[in-house]
């Protein structure tokens, strides 16, 4: 469909920039009183009609019938009349929604500019090193667990847990954990379960306790949101910061996001430079209320 020339052009940053310029102009046209329309005269142009027709056809996958078409045009004229009257009355001024919407439209543009940036590997690597926690591969746990339901053991929970712990450590790997402890719909054995999965299944408290358990011996009771657990930890794969190649897309995603925030801020500061800002009375209004009493 597209010629090579067009393909190339679409990738051309300058074109993107020009399109952005058009958006800005459009946004400003919305607030500007100077539109190309003559006052007291509404012209629904051929182009607008074509656009309305196409939009209807695209949504419904059919053309509008005569009645629908006339309805669309009537609504378009009605919208234009109200729009112009509202503008003439200055109703766009001091309207929170309109003001913020326009702010948002400009922010969309700086978002788009930020999206043009192409980081080098060096930049991504630097970002990875500066924010290792965002990309750290989680610690993973290989463990077995036996559950004790506090509702069933009541006051004897601590004693029962101690007895069971002794039994498990006596029997070692021969212990048949499928028959020990109380039933609950949790697996009894986990193989290299990532910390976030442990947290989803067992809750925060349990996950925190897990990292500190020594290997090779039944431990506990370890408390979870469900009750008490005896745990045999056999392997902890510690968390690590991966190489860029392993997490390139994630780093790119975060880098893009950081650029976006930066761009918004920079854009604002650039605009602000052209203004002299006077705040008449920067003191909190409380003071004036108090003094008027």
């Amino acid at each position, binding site marked *: 469909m597209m010629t090579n020339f067009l393909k190339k052009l679409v990738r051309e940053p300058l074109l993107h920039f020009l399109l952005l310029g058009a958006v800005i102009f459009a946004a400003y046209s919305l607030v500007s009183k100077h539109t190309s329309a003559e006052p007291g005269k509404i012209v629904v142009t051929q182009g607008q009609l074509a656009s309305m027709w196409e939009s209807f056809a695209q949504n419904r996958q059919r053309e509008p019938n005569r009645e629908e078409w006339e309805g669309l045009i009537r609504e378009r004229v009605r919208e234009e009349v109200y729009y112009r009257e509202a503008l003439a009355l200055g109703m766009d001024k001091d309207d929170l929604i309109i003001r913020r919407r326009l702010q948002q439209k400009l922010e969309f543009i700086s978002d788009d500019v930020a999206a043009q940036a192409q980081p080098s590997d060096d930049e991504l690597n630097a970002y990875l090193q500066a924010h290792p926690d965002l990309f750290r591969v989680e610690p993973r746990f290989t463990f077995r667990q036996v559950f004790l339901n506090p509702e069933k053991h009541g006051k004897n929970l601590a004693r029962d847990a101690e007895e069971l712990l002794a039994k498990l450590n006596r029997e070692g790997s021969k212990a048949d954990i499928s028959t020990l402890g109380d039933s609950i719909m949790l697996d009894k054995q986990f193989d290299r379960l990532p910390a976030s999965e442990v947290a989803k299944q067992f809750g925060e408290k349990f996950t925190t306790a897990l990292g500190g358990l020594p290997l090779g011996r039944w431990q506990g009771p370890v408390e979870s949101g*469900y009750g008490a657990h005896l745990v045999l930890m056999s392997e902890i794969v510690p968390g690590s910061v991966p190489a860029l190649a392993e997490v390139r897309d994630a780093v790119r995603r975060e880098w893009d996001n950081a650029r976006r925030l930066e761009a918004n801020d920079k854009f604002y500061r650039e605009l602000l430079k052209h203004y002299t800002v006077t705040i008449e009375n920067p003191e909190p209004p409380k003071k004036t209320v108090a003094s008027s009493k």
Partner: protein
Amino acid sequence: MSGTKDRLILVVSAILVLFLSACSTKNAEAPAPQQSQSQSMQSTQPRPARNPLKNAYFGDLHLHSGYSMDAFAFGTRTTPEDSYRYAMGESVDYMGKPQKRIAPLDFLAVTDHVEYLGVVRDALDPNGPFGKTEWYTMMNSTDPAVSATAFKKLIGSTVVNKPLPEFSDPKMLRSTWEKYEAIADKYNAPGKFTSFIGFEWTSAPDFQNLHRCVIFADKGPAMPYTAFDSLDPEDLWRYLELQRKQGLDVIGIPHNGNASNGLMFSAKDMSGKPLTRDYAERRMANEPLAEIIQAKGQSDTSPELSPTDEFANFEMWKYLIGTSIHAKSATGSYIRQAYGVGQELQAKLGINPFKYGIEAGTDFHSGITSTEASNFPGSHGNQDNDPKTVITATTSVAGEPPTALSSGGLTGVWAEENTRESLFAALKRKETFGTSGTRIKVRMFAGWSYLKDMTQQADWVKAAYDGGVPMGGDLTPPAGGAGPTFVVHALKDPNGGNLDRVQIIKISTKNGKSQEKVYDVLWSGDRKADAKTGKVPAIGNTVDVKSATYTNSIGSPELIGEWTDSSFDAKANVTYYARVLEIPTPRWSTYWAAKLNLPPNPGVAASVQQRAWTSPIWYTPAK
């Protein structure tokens, strides 16, 4: 005109500064960034294996970021990027403070109001209202001198000296909508986190809520459908049907029946005509699920409609959308009653138009699914951001008092794995549940010949699938006369309150009349059901309001067991669904009051029983 030009130059030069810095590291010939889904974030961890017996995944299918105009007007500055990051467990800035979930979510659809998302695209349409502006004319001038002058002024370059034919093709322009879709795709990480492309269709004639969230299975549409296009749900369905015809699977999800003033589950259509078979068929083909709870209250039932249900008075919302007008009608606004009305209509039309599965969402306008009551930062920007005002206020700019908003709504999905394909298939077959924001896992099965005590077996889930149907399914008529047996399993949120009880709610319809009954079927401790009413006494309350604390010294971590409907009538249509109640825990507003050392707002409950509702299982008699 010159004022406009000056402005233009000012803004463009600001953009230019940005643009040049963005390009500083870039080779001009470098290809544009890839946006294909396969390029999205990868994990160095192996993808978990599919579980044919299914896992429960939690997420939100109803969330607004700052891209929604009303949210932005409330001061919410989060973008959909922030929404996905927060759901995945990252810390994001909301109203100037970092926020992070205690337990990350498994999936999310950001569903911004699309009524405004398309505006930027309109502004760029050369056939549109700006097509005849001076800027556009200059850009497209056949006189190279004119365009060159324009660009020279703007970018100090003479690179472009001829018209750009592509500019007349709107498809070349990356609209806000396309950008919004690309963000969702970027965060989709099969096996770890699922993002869905979605939007909200915001129809509310006279503030009576008929909103629907629209969720796409995978790829999104060229353009969304807005309430500017039509306010009639039947027109939205036509759009959904067209999308499916074009190969994009999609569902709509109605929400806040409670604020619809009786319109959401009305036995009449938008024009006041009685529902037809065709309407019922299309409604169910397009909307398998309904949202049972969100920020603006629950739509299960009301104390007025269910006077014998002592747990009905929970997160009630009495207002029409965005107003302080009280809804006049409860009839037609709540799902439980709609199940009965649907069965009555089924007798006439041959199809039940309200055979809804259950899901839940937040509808937060904060961009973040912060459903943890103890970790709740407010949900509507500056409308409920300042704790002191919120705890004492009785009204707000948006109408309703901010404490009336709940901290709830999450959707639970039973699926083989955490991928778009697996989760969406579960949404369509209604193997879903809704919670008030807590992460209770609940599943229900029904069959005619389940073994007694089957849940004692290690492989009971497989036996339950093999010998019956999961929630969202249909029971076919029985061979014998005995009632169906239900197997229910509920596991508490490991970061939340213990479980009080599991109930099965039965709505049966015969000879055009419907009745509901709530059965206590599983409960904690040694409480005895009342011999006459069958009701199990209240669990008690450990909440200390002043400090906003509770203890899990009552209730169970897990409830599991079977229940047989002994009053089954094979000739009646029946909808069965389960409700799980936690022990009372502090409401979010109580946590806030405690922090400020203030009494909680008297207009809302100090403690609540957080809960979950399963999708129903339906029984239809043989003809």
